[in-house]
Structures are given as C-alpha cells and as structure tokens.
C-alpha cells in the first residue's frame, strides 16, 4: 500500500506486488514471506550433498512472479532453508537470501533470526535482517498501526 505520486492515487497491492524494493533497501516483502513460493511454483527436489537438498522452483503458467526460477537450499536434518536464489527469465541469478540464524520457539518450529539479502546485480548491495528479541503469543492489533510500526510496540 502506498501513495503513488505519478498516478496520483493510493495503490493497494497484492502480495506478489510487493517485490518492489522496500524503502530503498534490498528487502522486499516477497523475500520474507514463504507463501508465494508455495502458490506459484512447481517444485523439483534433488540431493545437493549429504546434508542439504536443492529445491528448484519453476513458476506455474501465468503465475504472478517475475522470476524465471527460484532455488532453495534446505538443511536435511531440521528441514530449514539456508539459501534462496532468485533467477531472472534469462537464467541469471538476480539476488539471493542467505539465512544464518534460527530460533526454535516451539519444538520443531523455527523463527528466522538472522538473514541477509544480496543484490547480485549490484556488487556489495546487501541488507542484513536480524531479530534481537522475540516473544511468543498473540500480537495486539494496535501494533500494526502506522505510528506503532515507527515507534515500536510493547506488550
């Protein structure tokens, strides 16, 4: 959601539309949400080495994704993603997400606490994403207001 100055109106966008660079950083909504991957892609798995599986995702016809292919490197033991690589439709990698930290907030359930998005077209452009503190429980709606998102929210 955001006011588009050129169009002169507010545009409410679906999840796939959130691929745009977010606030000028290399983080985009889609990088952080796993849902797109399941909805729009045809998976194909093979062993990469003894510890990891390489999951190759090809978009379904007319799927609203700009990628030509997405690959996921998944740790066999805990079934946790280690690396996601996004390819354009010409076969070139465009960006990758490397996940380096997890927290187990319930038995067998994990939360990503440290990840890094690298822009492969612009050498050295990267965005680190770290969760320093986390809590389990319901989140009050008020935490999603504009001001709460800016100031932070205690509960």
């Amino acid at each position: 959601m955001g006011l588009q100055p050129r169009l002169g109106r507010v545009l409410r966008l679906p999840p796939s539309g959130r691929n745009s660079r977010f606030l000028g950083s290399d983080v985009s909504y889609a990088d952080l949400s796993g849902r797109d991957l399941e909805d729009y892609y045809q998976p194909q798995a093979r062993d990469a080495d003894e510890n990891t599986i390489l999951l190759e995702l090809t978009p379904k016809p007319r799927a609203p994704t700009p990628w030509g292919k997405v690959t996921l490197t998944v740790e066999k033991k805990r079934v946790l993603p280690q690396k996601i690589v996004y390819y354009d439709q010409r076969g070139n990698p465009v960006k990758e997400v490397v996940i380096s930290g997890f927290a187990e907030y319930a038995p067998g359930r994990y939360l990503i606490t440290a990840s890094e998005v690298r822009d492969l077209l612009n050498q050295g452009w990267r965005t680190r994403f770290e969760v320093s503190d986390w809590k389990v429980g319901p989140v009050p709606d008020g935490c999603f207001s504009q001001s709460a998102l800016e100031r932070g929210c205690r509960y």
Partner: protein
Amino acid sequence: MKGATAMTTARLAWRNVWRHRQRTYLLAAVVAYASVATIFYWSMIDGYKLSVLEAHARYVLAPVTVARTAWFADPDPENGMSDTDQALAALTSAGSPPYAPRLRFAGLLTSPYLSETAFLRGVDPVAEAAVSRVPARIGKGRWLAAPGEVVLGYKLAERLDVRLGERLVVSTAALAGPRSLGLEVVGLVHARVSTVDDFGVYLHIDDARYLTGLTGATHLAVNAPLGHEQTLARRLAKELPAGLTAKPVWDLVGPIKTDVEAGKKLSLPIGLLLALFAALAVTSTLIVSVLERTREFGVILALGMDNASLGWMIVLEAAFATAVGWLLGLLLGYGLIYYTSTHNVLGPFFQLSGEVWSEAGLTEEFYTHLSPLYAFYSLITVIVSALAAFFFPALRARRLQAAAALRWE
C-alpha cells in the same frame, strides 16, 4: 488630347518591372520572404495544435470517450460501467460509429529488476484497431491476440528491462481486492508519442476484468474523423441516459488545451509583428529605389506625364513586383509546409525543448499543417505591408515638381 491613359501607365509599369531587374528581384525577395514566413508560421501554429490533438485522439485518449459522469471526475474502475448495454444502445442510435471498450486502471508492473506504477489499459484486441493507431505501431513482436498477453511502450520495456516472450507481473487492487497476473510480453509499441512509448501498457480486457473485478468497461473509445470529435460527442451525449456522458478529446486534454490556446492567442501579435517587419522591409526597399530615380521621374514629368499617373506607375511597379514576390512566396511557402507536413524534419528540433514538449503528448514527430487559409494570411500581410510601403512613393510622386526633380543631384 488626353494624358497617359491607365493602360499606358500600367504598361510602362509592367515594362519597368522587367527592366529594373535587380530592384524587382530585391522587392520580390523581401515580399517572398515575408509570405513564406507568414505561411510557415501559421502552418506551424496549426500543426502544433493538430499534433497535440491527433496524438491524444489516436494514441493517448480517444476521439470521443463515453463513460459514466462519475468516471470523468474520478477515473477509477469503481466508477466504471458493469455493463455497456446502455452506452452501446446510444451509439447505435447515433449512427453506429466504430468503438472499442476499454478498462483503464492503475497498477504495478514488476520485472525481476524493477517495479513501476502505471495506468494499464485493458482492450479488446480486435476492436481497438478501429479507434487507435497503437495496434498498428508495434515496433517489435505483435499486437495482443488473447488473454495472458501484454504489450508495452518500448521505452517502458527498456526501463523495466523486459523482453519479448518474458513474463511481466501486473498487479492492482480494485473492486476484487488485490490481484495479480503474470503476463507474457508479446509486443513493444513504437508510437513516437511519448506518453505511449514511455508509459503505455495494453492487456486483454478479460485480464483487466479479472484483475479489477469490473465486469464491463471503464469507458468506450469512439472513433470520429479529426476535427469532428465535438460534433459526435454532442450527438452521443443527447442519446445517452442520465449518468453517462460523451466527451471529445479536446475536453479531456486538460491543461494542454489552455497551453495550446494561449499559444494561439500569443501567435496573433507575433503574426502582426511579422507583417510589420515585412512592411518595413518593403517600404525601405521602395524608398531607396524611388529616391534613386528622382531624375528619371523629373524627365518623365517634363515629357508630359502628370503626377497622378507617375504615382500610379510607381505604385503599380511595386505592386507587380510584390505580386511576383507573393506568388513566389506562395510557391516556396507551400512547398516548404508540404514537405514539413509529410516529413518529420521539425520533430528533432522541437525535441530540444524537452519536457514541456513531451508532456504535451508528443515528441519525435512534428508535422506542419496545410491549409489554403495561409495564402490568405500571407496576402493580408503583403497587402498591409504594401499599403504602408506604397504610401511614401505615391505621396512623393504627387508632390514631385518637374523643375525641382531635374535639378536633383
């Protein structure tokens, strides 16, 4: 006994025109220049207005647009027509002009590298060709044929870095909530109209209906010959039920209209100034030549021509040379504007003026307009300048005394 008759005077003047070659050429050249300048100037002014109009009628908007009144105020799919039956009935009773349904909405385009917001236009691929030149201006690939396809302005495609055959993600949120589709780029438009080349996005109207949730169309684009938009729009408006309106392109171009009309108003004093300069040039040319010939006139007066006939002779000489210059100017002027109306020689010039130009809806091409009216304008310029210019010689010939002229050095 009778003095020099009008015929004799005219004949003498005609002979002098050809005998005083250089003077005639000079005067004719000055007049020709003024005529060419006038013709070219007005042709450009009209050409500009028509280019703007044409670009908007054939590329950016439509000759006539039929939509709900609310849509004109806020062109959002929410204000669109869920069915177009009423509008189509009105078209039928107004003589069934060619039309195409359109569904226009704001959305986001996403390529692997970039996202950009745009106004997207859902069109019926076949019907669209009847009202728009865009389908005929595909530079690469082809025009839309079926759902699942998208056609882009070539500059937009360059910015997004998408190529033919690649998938582009189109997203919007309208009546149906947030929705998106991956469409295959099948064609790139090279319309030479900046709004189209820079921002044009065309997809199948069925895809647009799916994305927006609007079952009908936002508006109907109706065809009308250039210059007849207003008439058709008025006729349609009469047939349409309350809540629906038809608007000619000129009413929808917004601030461009005021710009162009202000330009046209400004052009009148400039045109007058042009005529004034022409008058000045013709006058000074004539004055010099008349002063030079004082002794000759003295002899002619001594031999028995009266002052009035002498005055007429000088004026006729100037008039002949002026007429020759005017005809020459017509030839050159119309030749020039014919060329510039068929060849895009001025476009690159105007492009130098940059942003303002492309915001008016045009860039790379500019054609002058051809109208017989410019001959009339140039004639007025020539006559006004001639009247001013002939005044002095005629006056001088009237006052010239033979004895004094003979003593003139």
